């Protein structure tokens, strides 16, 4: 069953190489994702070979499949509206990407996890590249280089961990048992490599360089996938390793790093956001902020909180990127200064943009407000101060573009021929609605329950 689950996405990927009709491509991709969504619910706690689906994996798998299905539907409308004849590239690469994601979440082996994370990098590089062009090429190249180096550093970490486990196994369950006997000093060393390696992919502060480039140059549905799902997978890897360190009794050591990197990302994101001129880069830096916050929450030793944070972030950010896609369709420019008066030109998109951005800014009634509150609640006064400062900076950075684009001056009604395809609005609306509901009733208990498999020890 798990193998079926693993390979499901390859079918639509193969189909995408042959078919050219956008509607069918979107349908098949979404169907694949929905199918695996259902299957994964049935497959919890099953194991097969190096694969095993535990609570945390299930959580992220469900999230990924859900987002992928929605984004695939949206992408159908998006490529149709932008008259892109090469949508199949997106679906082929996207499904390959989904395959890698499935692999990563199903893998119960740290080595296999690494392989699939690297695979997701490659597949997502294809997503970023899409149809090419100078800027996309530049972004892809930088992404590939930085990502590869990062992941290679991560591999060093994996190797060191493997060696520390006595070269016996990389299986997650057994590793947790064995790691207690490992030399702590050298485990720390291994963690340093893992942190920088996977941290590059998560987009933590001084390692984030690829992130805004890739997010801004990819087609909007791909940006949504990158931000909503790709960052999660690297985060997931770090989550596993942090748990491993926890089993070894070294969590305190990891916590310092995680918290520092988290706060650094948050604070830096505020400054990056403040001077941003391109709204897709803006959203990318916001991703850096939220991954920083998730890492920080992880550093606090509350995995369920970090998971919840990534969940809310994924929902909101996907909605935001999809709304940004609508903007791009309507205004044909990624510059904030070129967009204005969206609330008159396209009220539905304006509403979605406002809600998703406010959600990202951590305002109630959305979930990020809850997770940020919980994280603050467990912080020391100093960290709390920095955290609040960072949140303010980020908010200041997001607020102006939001006001400017949605309510500021612009062409108003005169935008000719808006794409009137329902999915362009319905999909992000579904995401925002979900974010709203989950924000009002945060599924804390469920996530806590799922995170129990990490058997977190401080």
């Amino acid at each position, binding site marked *: 069953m798990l193998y079926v689950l693993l390979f499901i996405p390859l079918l639509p990927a193969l189909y995408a190489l042959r078919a050219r009709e956008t509607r069918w491509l979107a349908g098949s991709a979404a169907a694949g994702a929905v199918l695996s969504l259902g299957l994964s619910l049935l497959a919890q706690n099953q194991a097969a070979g190096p694969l095993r689906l535990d609570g945390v994996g299930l959580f992220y798998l469900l999230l990924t499949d859900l987002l992928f299905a929605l984004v695939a539907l949206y992408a159908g409308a998006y490529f149709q509206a932008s008259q892109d004849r090469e949508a199949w590239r997106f679906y082929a690469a996207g499904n390959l990407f989904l395959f890698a994601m499935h692999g990563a979440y199903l893998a119960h082996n740290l080595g296999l996890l690494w392989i699939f994370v690297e695979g997701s990098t490659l597949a997502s590089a294809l997503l970023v590249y899409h149809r090419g062009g100078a800027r996309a090429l530049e972004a892809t*190249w*930088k992404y590939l*280089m*930085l990502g590869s*180096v*990062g992941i290679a*550093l991560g591999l060093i970490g994996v190797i060191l961990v493997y060696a520390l486990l006595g070269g016996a196994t990389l299986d997650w369950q057994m590793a947790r048992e064995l790691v207690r006997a490992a030399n702590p000093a050298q485990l*720390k*060393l291994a*963690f*340093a*490599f893992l*942190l*920088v390696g996977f*941290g*590059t992919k998560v987009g933590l502060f*001084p*390692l984030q*360089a*690829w992130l*805004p480039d890739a997010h801004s140059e990819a087609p909007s549905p791909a940006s949504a996938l990158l931000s909503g799902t790709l960052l999660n997978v690297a985060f997931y890897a770090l989550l596993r390793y942090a748990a491993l360190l926890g089993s070894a009794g070294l969590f305190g050591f990891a916590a310092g*790093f995680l918290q520092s990197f988290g706060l650094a990302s948050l604070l*830096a994101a505020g*400054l*990056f956001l*403040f*001077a941003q001129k391109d709204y897709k880069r803006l959203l990318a830096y916001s991703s850096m902020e939220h991954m920083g916050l998730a890492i920080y929450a992880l550093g606090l030793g509350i995995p369920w909180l970090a998971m919840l944070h990534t969940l809310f972030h994924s929902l909101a950010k996907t909605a935001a990127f999809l709304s940004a896609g609508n903007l791009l369709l309507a205004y044909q420019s990624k510059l904030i200064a070129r967009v*204005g*008066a969206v*609330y008159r030109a396209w*009220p539905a998109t304006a509403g979605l943009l*406002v809600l998703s951005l*406010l959600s990202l800014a951590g*305002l*109630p*009634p959305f979930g990020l*407000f*809850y997770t940020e*509150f919980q994280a*603050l*609640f467990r912080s020391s*006064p100093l960290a*709390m*101060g920095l955290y*609040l*400062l960072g*949140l*303010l900076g980020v*908010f*200041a950075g997001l*607020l*102006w573009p939001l*006001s*400017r684009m*949605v*309510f*500021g*001056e612009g062409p108003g009604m005169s935008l000719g021929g808006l794409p009137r395809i329902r999915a362009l609005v319905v999909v992000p609306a579904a995401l925002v609605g979900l974010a709203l509901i989950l924000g009002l009733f945060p599924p804390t208990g469920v996530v806590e329950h799922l995170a129990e498999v990490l058997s977190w020890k401080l």
Partner: protein
Amino acid sequence: MNPLIETALIFLGMQSLLALLRPPATGFLPLSLGGSGLLLLLAGLGAWLAGARGTPLDAAAGFYMALLGALYLGVGPYLREYLSHHEPSRARLEAFLLPLFAAAMVGVLLAPPGYAFLFLWEGMALLGYLLMALEGPDGLAGSRAFFLASRLSGAGLFLALILLAHKGLRVGGLEHLVWAGLVLGFGTKAALFPLHAWLPKAHPVAMSPLSALLSGGMVKLGLYGLYRAQDWAGPPPEWVGWLLVALGLAGAVYALARGLAEEDYKGVLAYSSVENLNLLLAALGAYFLLKSPFFLLAFFFQQAAHALFKGLLFLGSGALPVRELSRLGGLHRLLPRTAAWSFLGALAAAGLPPLAGFLFEWYLYQGFLAAPRGAGASSLLVLGVGVVALVGALAAVSYVRLFGLAFLGQPRSTQAMTAREMGGFGQLGLGVLAGLLLGLSLFPTALLSPLKPPLYPVLPLFLALMGLGGGLVYWVRRKPQRVYDPWDCGFHSPDLQGSALTPQMQPHALGYSEQLLRLFPFLELKAHLSREEMLAPPKVRLEVSDWLEVMETRLTRGYTALAHQVQRLQSGSLHLYLLLQFLTLLLVLGVVWR
């Protein structure tokens, strides 16, 4: 919970729902918003007068709830008329958001300090922002400033309330940190100088009923928080009192002076709000220091009074055709009722007996005069008397200028000749607030009875003024009179049509206060001479530069420069990125080794 409050909240919820389902649903506003206002007024007054303690409705919270209720009662009918002039799509959104905003404010009063409080606090800010942002490009800067300040306020509260929740942590200096957070959080919302900068930007751009709710209601919640925080965090450290008094008094003078340099009608009102709030904060601070009942009386009474008269004035401003004072004038002819309501509001706001504003100053003076004697620092509080007197005088001038330039004299522009009076519902809303204001002025004990207030003979004074004044007016009116043009130094000639006076000969908005502004060193007056044509007489344009605003601009510029510096890390050079990655690795490894 109190069934009255529940019903009121249901009313508000229903209104929002209706706006969603059967747009624009503005017709229900008098009933829903106004009705909920009445219920809240009753429920709040009940709790306040009964002196309830703790949950569900504390006496202090009840006071504020009554205050909000009174505002809703007036704004509800007014809003129905006001929104009917908006496009239906926008009116629908406003009819949806406004009740939610109103409900959030009520919720803040009911919420215990903690997650729910912060949730509602930030939600309130969010709704306020959205309502303001719907104004479009004009409201951009204002709504942004409002939201930013709200988040700053939220940050302070996050800090304070979370530390408060960790009871075990409260050792040593943490107490001070809690209060610092509270002062930052609630102070920003209550426009504590110099954190007030957002208010004069935000309130003028909001639509008039919203300005009334913001200025009359929302900012008071900051004061509520600071007062109520005594229950949550225990008595404040001494520095809190001193800080509030010092900043409050300084801010009151500053705001009035700055308001005199303001040309926007609602801007002047906003600065007046800043003044009142700062004076209230000073009163609260002095209460923290001296525990004198006079300050408490002043504090509570003026909040109610300010809510009513500022609500009245802001609602009245909705009928103005333009906001610039230098383009208004003579509006009493076109808007006789609005002029009358605004006049009542201005009298109260200027702190003149027998209306409510004076009683506040009366209490404040007595409080400051009762400061302890001797060498202690608190004896210096007596100088507050002088500041209050200055503030009183400045406030009077400010309102003379506001009302005089807008409603009296000759119209200064063609727009000022096209104003239209509000219809029945609008007048009803204004009338409700005016009635409440008058009632509060004449029967202050009805509200203040829990505090056992001393009073001056306000009712006899009022009756004497009305009786004798009415008699005299009647008498004089019956005397022979003629209608003639105003005195123009005899330049009047039959060739000219009527008087030789032109509207441009009236004092200009800045000209009126120019001499006064020169008294205040933080305001720099600059006169610009400009000629439209070669031989035309030069026009003098006065410009005020405000030291505080200059600082603010510099701060923003500095921050932007910093952001640009940081952005240079993302220079586009892959090699730099790789180097950064390498250095990060080395850094982390270095830390591990150490």
